[in-house]
């Protein structure tokens, strides 16, 4: 064993260090790539949380997703939805209890008619104003499709 130890020492020649530098560069590249994918996944999680689960993302964002990232977004939204339905509690709404459960909104984009909300069905034509429940309006405001009117 002693002899083997000595042989390893003398075998550490120039090639060994060259291979070492190469190996360290590979590890470094791996780390950079992993960090890139990890940070993208974090942004996707943020999107799923803020923009609304399983709703359509704007196409400029969607076309930049790779296939596995789209799948990740869908799976993450599904798990969140399942969690919320098991708790029967929507954790995505505003945490501060509002003074008024209803809110006045103006529709910014054409969403089509006959959209069913929690207490009525409404026709969201562009520039129309509605008096909605706060929880319903929140998802549309977060996606930029409506704005709140502060009188």
């Amino acid at each position: 064993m002693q002899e083997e130890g000595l042989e390893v020492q003398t075998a550490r020649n120039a090639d060994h260090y060259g291979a070492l530098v190469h190996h360290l560069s590979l590890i470094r590249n791996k780390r950079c790539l992993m960090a890139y994918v990890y940070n993208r996944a974090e942004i996707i999680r943020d999107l799923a949380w803020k923009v609304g689960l399983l709703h359509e993302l704007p196409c400029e964002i969607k076309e930049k997703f790779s296939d596995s990232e789209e799948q990740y977004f869908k799976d993450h939204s599904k798990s969140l939805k399942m969690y919320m339905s098991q708790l029967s509690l929507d954790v995505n709404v505003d945490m501060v209890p509002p003074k008024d459960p209803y809110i006045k909104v103006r529709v910014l984009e054409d969403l089509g008619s006959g959209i069913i909300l929690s207490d009525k069905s409404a026709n969201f034509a562009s520039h129309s104003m509605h008096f909605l429940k706060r929880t319903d309006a929140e998802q549309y405001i977060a996606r930029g499709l409506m704005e709140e009117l502060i009188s």
Partner: protein
Amino acid sequence: MANYYNIDDILAEEEFVPVVFHKAANGVIIDPSSETNSVEQGAKVELPLWLAQDLYLRQAISISVPACFNQRTRLEIQADAACVDLKSRSPYFYEFGCKIAPLVGDKTIEILLLSAFKIRYKEILTKAYTAAYTTASKFLTLLTKEESNLYEAAQVSMSAFKKWRMGGPRLQRASVLGRKRRSFE
């Protein structure tokens, strides 16, 4: 493990340090001007920190103090730390110094970093709360990445406070959607 995925940490380790090789290395092009693709013993090259750290652990090199901590910087910091342009030396000045200190064996780096940071921190906070946009932009170019994070955090908390005072709209368009992204043409 929290630093493995952290982009700031990765970028901080990209900074160059001057090293002296003790052992030769074959088959690698580290010095772009050398004819053969190998490094001989005793060669002086500039390596990025991530490479230098591991080679130092295997006792193949010895690291000397990097250029951003030289005498000129120290004198400038002693004169007036608040006006020194640390960003041009290295945008990750503090992280870089923290990583370098055990490798180089220079005890004065810690004291230097601490005193510089103390004075600059005071400046950052006062400027964040009081300066108008035009005067502040010249100051912002002097800050390292870590300091500009602090500055932005101060500004964000200030604007959140103002919004709370005035009672602005609580529900807003998600900030993630706010940036205009270029679509593929």
